[in-house]
């Protein structure tokens, strides 16, 4: 039996939230100088694209958008099987002394962000790294927090938060999927 899904944010709510996040990014960095937006594969990359678009509309500056796939930096590769698919990492510019905002869809345990920070360190030494997430669902297992949060949701362990984005899923939304046993 498929669990009942509830829509937490519909397309318009997602758009509103992203617009506010775009403003907060510019505010946090006091402008857009030397700023690179880096999305985490896969949904984070789509969201990063949106933020770049919205910042371009407001500020008239099109920021560089990179992509990180953190699979090869995961801390559970020795225990997961079969192997997760590896996506593309695309960071063709030097990030030394640049300012980087990492974008992801959902912040949960913090392990993805830990891996992303390790991977970024292999590319260079940014002067500052910030984190922007569409949903912070709590449940952290590492001392990591987001600088910019779209929505905070209190989601029990076992439940899922699915962020759907137009390019991959047809329509933007944030969907709550309760635990399978519920």
């Amino acid at each position, binding site marked *: 039996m498929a669990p009942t899904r509830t829509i937490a944010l519909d397309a318009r709510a997602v758009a509103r939230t992203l617009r506010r996040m775009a403003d907060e990014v510019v505010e946090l960095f006091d402008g857009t100088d030397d700023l690179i937006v880096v999305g985490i594969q896969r949904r984070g990359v789509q969201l990063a694209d949106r933020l770049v678009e919205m910042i371009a509309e407001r500020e008239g500056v099109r920021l560089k958008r990179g992509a990180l796939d953190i699979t090869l930096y995961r801390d559970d590769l020795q225990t997961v099987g079969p*192997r997760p698919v590896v996506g593309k990492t695309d960071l063709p510019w030097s990030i030394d002394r640049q300012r980087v905002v990492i974008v992801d869809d959902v912040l949960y345990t913090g392990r993805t962000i830990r891996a992303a920070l390790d991977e970024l360190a292999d590319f260079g030494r940014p002067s500052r790294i910030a984190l922007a997430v569409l949903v912070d669902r709590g449940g952290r297992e590492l001392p990591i927090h987001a600088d910019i949060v779209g929505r905070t949701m209190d989601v029990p362990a076992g439940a899922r938060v699915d962020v759907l984005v137009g390019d991959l899923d047809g329509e933007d939304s944030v969907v709550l999927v309760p635990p399978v046993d519920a």
Partner: protein
Amino acid sequence: MSTSADLGKDLLGLEELTTAQIQLLLDVSEPFKEISLRSIKKVPTLRGATVVNLFFEASTRTRLSFEFAEKRLSADAVNVASSGSSVSKGETLVDTARNLEAMKIDMVVVRHGSSGAARFLAQRIESNVINAGDGMHEHPTQGLLDLLTLRDHFKRLAGLRVCICGDVLHSRVARSNIWGLRKMGAEVALCGPRSLLPNAVEEMGVTVFRRIEEAIEWADALNILRLQLERMQGGYIPSLREYNRVFGVTRDKLERAPRDVLIMHPGPMNRGVEIDSDVADGPHSVILDQVTNGVAVRMAVLYLLAGGNPALAEAAKG
């Protein structure tokens, strides 16, 4: 996200892989290309894993390529060559491997002169086994890197016409290519002197050309094999010059082709024998791309086979 086409414990040949498994290997190779372009060419994926490169035959390219792949994934790589080891004192393959396992290793990359050596080993040790060439049987990572290079260039494999030229009889590269290409839907032809083609080769579903000119006219790509002089106890070809004149791929012959033909060679090349220098270094040659892709393919193979939980991997197969 998880993969639906798990590879199991070993990579022994392309013959036993499914189309989905080959597709997975090629797709997973793709993101690994980028790692070798970074200034820090290393990811922590296989940290703590020990890989032994056990080479009973001479190899430069394949061994180095595996070693780069291992190191760029942060595995600890150890090389064992037959000369200068107990192998030269008469120790058997399995004894050598069991002794290595007693020192707690995780993977073995093996090259051996006997067909079937990799499988023989895989059935007797716990570690993952990767075949880096066994006798005249298979060389699966070479087959995969050839497929990847073709796919890079033509953006597809299905329907592609690939002719494998030259010394097919002694070539494990040819066998891996034939299996891999056929499974991916490409058309495969062979061209070479009758004495250097295996018997009943048509049963593998390939076309045979007697003349290199016909092959060039038909093909989208030529995979030109090395004439394996060291495996020939004489009598296969009249002379090298004769071979070059009849079967060598030269600019003259290529210029008569109706379309540009992609030129591949697994190396090492005998320039002026199976391939002329102006072809090897010409605009349609992707011989060095093959070498670059080799590292990415081997990283993908190591990544897909290494570690993991065998019980989980087993369950996932079900």
